[in-house]
């Protein structure tokens, strides 16, 4: 009986956690790092005021184990699956982290959603959406899925990319790089020193401010570019399209690249010309305005 009791107690407190429901907590540094890895399912991360990392959720029936461990300032959460894993590995993780933590989330077939985390974020998935609210530098990427980054207009460096999907940045300020292959790139209500946005098949929509000495670049292959600078622009402006028209509400009119061939170009200096605005498409119209 004593042996049976010991076995039962051992199973109950055994690490790592086996497949099924999970509800575990570890003490953590208030501004440490949390690495999360989940092959399939979902990962939801929320910042909170406690100096603890809490993991709740469900593990797939064929998951080998959940690794949940701390090493000094770093907490690691990994869903371990068999090498030749097939079905039954979908795991939904809800992770609460100290709000000043930096996080690194990696997934393959999983959505990633983050809120109230004030530290740096690296969020990567292959198939799934990435949605985050960022208060510090963020790298967010998917291959097949949308990427959405919202901010509070504090200056950060944001890098958002996907292959198939839309990229949206809302109230992000500072420096931004956003790209897609098939999908739109939208940047709204921000204020920037540097903008580098582009897509192959899709539109670029930009409605934000470009600061003094700011550098702006927008490119598509097949798709329109619609840029509305909030406030005055002081920059050297170069706009080109091979097939498509250029419409601008400030500066001179666009001119044909060649009298006998396709293509339009618009080159002028706005204000003191201390910044740069470069916009180009191969097949697509360009709208440029400053309000």
């Amino acid at each position, binding site marked *: 009986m004593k042996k049976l009791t010991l076995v039962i107690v051992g199973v109950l407190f055994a690490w790592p956690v086996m497949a099924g429901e999970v509800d575990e907590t570890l003490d953590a540094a208030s501004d440490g790092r949390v690495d999360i890895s989940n092959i399939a399912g979902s990962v939801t991360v929320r910042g909170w005021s406690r100096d603890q990392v809490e993991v709740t959720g469900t593990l797939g029936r064929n998951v080998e184990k959940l690794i949940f461990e701390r090493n000094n300032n770093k907490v690691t959460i990994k869903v371990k699956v068999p090498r030749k894993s097939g079905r039954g590995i979908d795991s939904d993780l809800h992770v609460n982290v100290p709000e000043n933590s930096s996080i690194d989330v990696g997934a393959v077939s999983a959505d990633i959603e983050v809120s109230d985390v004030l530290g740096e974020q690296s969020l990567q998935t292959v*198939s799934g959406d990435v949605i985050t609210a960022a208060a510090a530098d963020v790298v967010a990427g998917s*291959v097949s899925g949308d990427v959405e980054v919202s901010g509070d207009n504090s200056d950060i460096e944001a890098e958002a990319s996907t292959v198939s999907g839309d990229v949206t940045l809302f109230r992000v300020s500072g420096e931004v*790089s956003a790209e897609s292959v098939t999908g739109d790139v939208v940047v709204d209500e921000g204020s920037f020193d540097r903008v580098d946005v582009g897509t192959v098949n899709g539109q670029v929509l930009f409605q934000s401010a470009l600061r003094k000495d700011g550098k702006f670049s927008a490119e598509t292959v097949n798709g329109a570019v619609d840029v509305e600078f909030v406030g005055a622009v002081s920059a050297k402006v170069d706009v080109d399209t091979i097939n498509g028209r250029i419409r601008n509400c400030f500066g001179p009119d666009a001119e044909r690249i060649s009298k006998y061939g396709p293509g339009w170009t618009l080159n002028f200096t706005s204000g003191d010309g201390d910044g740069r605005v470069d916009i180009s498409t191969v097949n697509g119209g360009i709208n440029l305005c400053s309000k």
Partner: protein
Amino acid sequence: MTDVREDKLETAARRLATDISPDRDLWPGIAETIASPRRPRWTPMLAQAAAVVLLIGASSAVTYVAVKGQEGPVVQVAPELLFEQASFGSHNLGPGFQDARNMLAAEFDAELVRLAPEVRDDVEANLKIVRIAIVEISQALEEDPDNVLLQERLLRAYRDELSVLRRVGGLTRNVMMRNDI
């Protein structure tokens, strides 16, 4: 061996820039040939080497058909030879670029099979879009070889392809490695 190979790939991938300004260490040969004011002298041999590349095929085994101008034989080339006969004038993109691309493509192919079928189809469809863009820009550049905008766009399109190869291969590999405890 796997670690050595992965280190090599990482080193090669890290050398590749994914933003608009290319890493000069990787692109000097390309930039130099593009910036060259030389106008190609069209001989039959060079004309064949400077063939317009047309992308066909819908599966992961893509076949490229090189067409010599308005006339001449249709030559089928394997994907790995695409950049030997690419697109602007008689210039190729240089061994450094090709080595890096081949390494990334091999890693990409290995990782692609690990993806769910619908994701794999999605990735392949998008890579095809990038490659079609390369072809279309190349075709335009053939007609207007001194067009700087097209030259820049072509470089960008090649970088987009490398970016897709690296990101897909890297993402899957990194997450898988993190689960190998």
